[in-house]
């Protein structure tokens, strides 16, 4: 048997299942269990990276038919460049996170058994890989459900707390509603591909070859988009994200936010570009608009949070929005037959997919390290951690810079590409798009600025200043396993930011296969140095040169400030003569986001109360001030509460049928029989 990328990735999936099978043998020694399982997971991820990189780099497409599944419906596997790209994303992050987990999960030792965490962690990874490998609707949905169920149990891991159970329940509901929509979408496509008489239409190949009438294609696309949007956390289906991500163990949140959401992106790209193939422009407009809404709303909600992991979860909503902006633009350009720009949009979206996996994984790992050390998620209680956890602080800062889209890190490159797709777009033949394109560019810029503000807050409040809580716990730096995971992720962020041309050259095959054009970044002299998406005279960016420039400025600043002795004094903080400064008087997360809360207040459901307790008769000298702030997602009130109330109402109505009297039940059957007899006569 020859070695193919598909074979390597399948081997990696098998290795993950082997890790699961080993669990019963190792259960008695939890420490050994952790090291074995996560080492195996790392090895599997490494294999997956090899397979994925090879599939993309070599433009190889392999297929395989497994003789398992339902009778006459075998499982089809396929590894093509698109799948290879997502396999690379998944495996890269899962490699880092598995290394990180070797240290992180040890924190649970002695507190609770970690067997279920280890089992479902590996199943979860395998599930994600299978989703990407699947080449028929049946296997895809099975893998999709395996992934959803495994992540449900991971969210439920610390199930003694009611918030975890609530979050997991909400998650599984949203996941299932999404899965039903996907199932229906595949049903439409399979039915139209080969007719409803046989089942051969369930393979993706049959769907690829079929021509769909527009209205059915639209139905299939909208259902699939709904299903994948529920998984990806597109506004307004995002509510499960900020509930589920904070309560899951941090390595799991890193994976869920970093790569599980990306499987939904994969699904959207696969269904729209590959399976359906042709589409009208307004599908792209829908994706673009929802992407813009998600980006802006996600970052605004993130700004309001003071729970570190919840803040990161809302940022996932934002970044999924940015990815969808790229993909939506690409769809619009494709339908107007502008392949060059379409390829640019797709590359931008996929690049951001990769970047978000890396920096969000890094940030969640950093948040996990902080949580591990301080047992605290609320930023208002933290501060000054940079002195105790210098490594974590530096790595978290790299993540913050990346996600804020600042050069020389990777976030900048992909957002820059997205901007290029906006700015280079010619006049569109539709008035809506004429409005949407400049507006979208403006909103994307707003998102970037707000994200930067948000991470100034997140980093500043968590790591700078002094400890804000009442008594500081014994904080320790993350161990080397955790550090190595984070260092590798940070390094990847850096490389993706400095050498984008190499990376884009590697993945350029994907738009070529899906749209028909490469973007050919490395044209001209010193091609590898300059990222030139369309033409040299329009716009180009050089990661290495910008990096060297920034390095020079930093070195110069350091030399000026630090080399001369005595240039920096450390003195007590000037207290304006007040003299009783304490750590509670620092700038807090809530106060930092106050101006933005004032400006965008109409988007939130805010309740703010200030209560003064005067000191005796002197009203000017309050004894105590209580400040109460509650910021809620308006979508709960708009979308979810009506649904919840309606389902309770329906249940109450149905409950009335239950009389408790045998006669009543008999009457029900009797009337049913009579009615059926009358109608089927």
């Amino acid at each position, binding site marked *: 048997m020859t070695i193919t990328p598909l074979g390597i990735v399948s081997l990696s999936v098998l290795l993950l299942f082997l890790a699961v099978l080993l669990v019963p043998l190792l259960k008695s020694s939890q420490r050994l269990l952790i090291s074995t399982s996560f080492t195996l997971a790392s090895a599997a991820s490494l294999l997956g990276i090899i397979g994925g990189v090879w599939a993309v780099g070599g433009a190889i497409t392999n297929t395989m038919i497994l003789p398992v599944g339902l009778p006459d419906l075998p499982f089809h596997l396929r590894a093509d460049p698109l799948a290879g790209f997502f396999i690379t994303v998944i495996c890269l992050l899962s490699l880092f996170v598995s290394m990180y987990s070797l240290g992180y999960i040890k924190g649970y030792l002695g507190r609770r058994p970690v067997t279920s965490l280890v089992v479902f962690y590996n199943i979860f990874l395998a599930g994600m890989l299978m989703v990407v490998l699947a080449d028929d609707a049946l296997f895809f949905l099975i893998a999709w459900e395996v992934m959803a169920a495994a992540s449900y149990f991971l969210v439920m891991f610390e199930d003694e707390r009611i918030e975890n159970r609530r979050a997991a329940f909400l998650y599984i509901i949203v996941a299932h509603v999404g899965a039903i929509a996907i199932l229906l979408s595949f049903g439409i496509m399979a039915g139209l591909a080969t007719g409803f008489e046989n089942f051969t239409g369930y393979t993706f190949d049959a769907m690829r070859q079929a021509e769909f009438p527009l209205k059915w294609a639209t139905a299939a696309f909208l259902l699939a988009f709904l299903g994948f949007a529920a998984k990806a956390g597109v506004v307004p289906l995002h509510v499960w994200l900020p509930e589920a991500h904070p309560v899951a163990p941090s390595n799991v949140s890193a994976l869920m936010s970093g790569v599980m959401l990306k499987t939904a992106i994969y699904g959207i790209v696969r269904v729209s570009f590959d399976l359906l193939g042709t589409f009208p422009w307004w599908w792209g407009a829908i994706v673009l608009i929802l992407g813009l809404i998600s980006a802006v709303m996600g970052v605004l909600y993130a700004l309001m949070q003071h729970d570190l992991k919840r803040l990161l979860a809302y940022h996932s909503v934002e970044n999924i929005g940015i990815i969808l902006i790229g993909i939506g633009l690409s769809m619009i350009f494709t339908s107007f037959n502008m392949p060059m720009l379409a390829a640019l949009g797709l590359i931008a979206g996929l690049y951001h997919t990769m970047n978000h996996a890396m920096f969000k994984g890094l940030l969640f790992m950093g948040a996990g390290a902080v949580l591990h050390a301080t047992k605290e998620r609320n930023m208002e209680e933290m501060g000054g951690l940079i002195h105790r956890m210098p490594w974590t602080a530096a790595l978290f800062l790299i993540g913050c810079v990346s996600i804020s889209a600042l050069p020389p890190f990777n976030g900048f490159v992909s957002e820059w590409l997205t901007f290029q797709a906006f700015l280079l777009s010619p006049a569109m033949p539709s008035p809506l798009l004429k409005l949407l394109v400049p507006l979208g560019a403006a909103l994307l810029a707003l998102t970037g600025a707000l994200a930067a503000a948000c991470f100034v807050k997140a980093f500043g409040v968590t790591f700078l200043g002094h400890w804000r809580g009442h008594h500081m716990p014994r904080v320790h730096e993350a161990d080397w396993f955790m550090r190595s995971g984070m260092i590798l992720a940070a390094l990847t962020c850096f490389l993706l930011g400095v050498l984008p041309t190499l990376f884009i050259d590697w993945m350029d095959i994907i738009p070529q296969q899906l749209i028909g054009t490469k973007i050919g970044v490395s044209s001209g002299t010193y091609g590898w140095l300059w990222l030139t998406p369309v033409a040299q005279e329009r716009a180009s960016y050089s990661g290495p040169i910008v990096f060297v420039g920034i390095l020079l400025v930093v070195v110069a600043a350091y030399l000026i400030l630090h080399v001369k002795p005595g240039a920096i004094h450390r003195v007590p903080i000037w207290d304006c003569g007040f003299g009783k400064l304490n750590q509670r008087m620092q700038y807090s997360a809530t106060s930092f986001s106050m101006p933005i809360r004032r400006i965008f207040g109409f988007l939130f459901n805010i309740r703010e109360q200030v209560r003064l307790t005067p000191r005796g008769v002197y009203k000017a000298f309050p004894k105590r001030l209580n400040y109460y702030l509650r910021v809620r997602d308006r979508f709960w009130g708009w979308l979810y509460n009506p649904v919840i109330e309606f389902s309770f109402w329906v249940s*109450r109505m149905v409950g009335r049928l*239950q009389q*408790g*009297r*045998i*006669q009543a039940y*008999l009457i029900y059957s*009797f009337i049913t*029989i*009579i009615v059926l007899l009358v109608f089927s006569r």
Partner: protein
Amino acid sequence: MDLNVAAQLNSFLAAFVLLTAFGMLVQRRMYGLVHLFTWQGFFLSINTAVVGFVAGKHHLYISSILTLSLKVILLPYILHVLIRRLKVHKEVEVVVNIPMTMMMGIALVIFSYYLMAPVTQLSTLVTRSTLAVALATVMIGLLMMITRKHAVTQIIGFLAMENGLFFAATSATYGMPLVVELGVALDILIAAFIFGIFFFHIHTTFDSLDVDQMARLKEED
């Protein structure tokens, strides 16, 4: 025997089955109900034998004997024992008053004839005219279960329904295969035993066999 005579005999017995069904619908006394049920089984058994003779299906004789032993001897005996042991031979309480129940029963018979009209036209069997009666018997059995409060009467209603089904099988297709009939007969017997056991338990727990008591098992809001 002439076919015409057989059809006449069949219709005659069908009329008796229907009559006993109506009798059960209006009968207030427990023993009376059991007696009527016995008679219904008896007519059913004879009818099965007649159909078996006319159609030349000899396995119908076996099911006829089975019916006779089960529904005329064994089940009435069990019911008698139940009634005596549980001391429930007083007047049966009804949910809807008797004349109203009668009217509903008549409506059901008409409805059955209306339903079966197309089937009767298509069928070539001797017994085709009794299909509607069989259906009416099933429905009247169900109606009896609905209108009675007492658990034992509900069982009798259930058994009457089964009689109707058996009758329908005989008149629609000259009986089911023997294996199926044996199975059904066994089911009925087992059901009767299980009901008996349950009733003893219900009686000792609730001190009554009024099914209204079970409304307490309903979920509270």
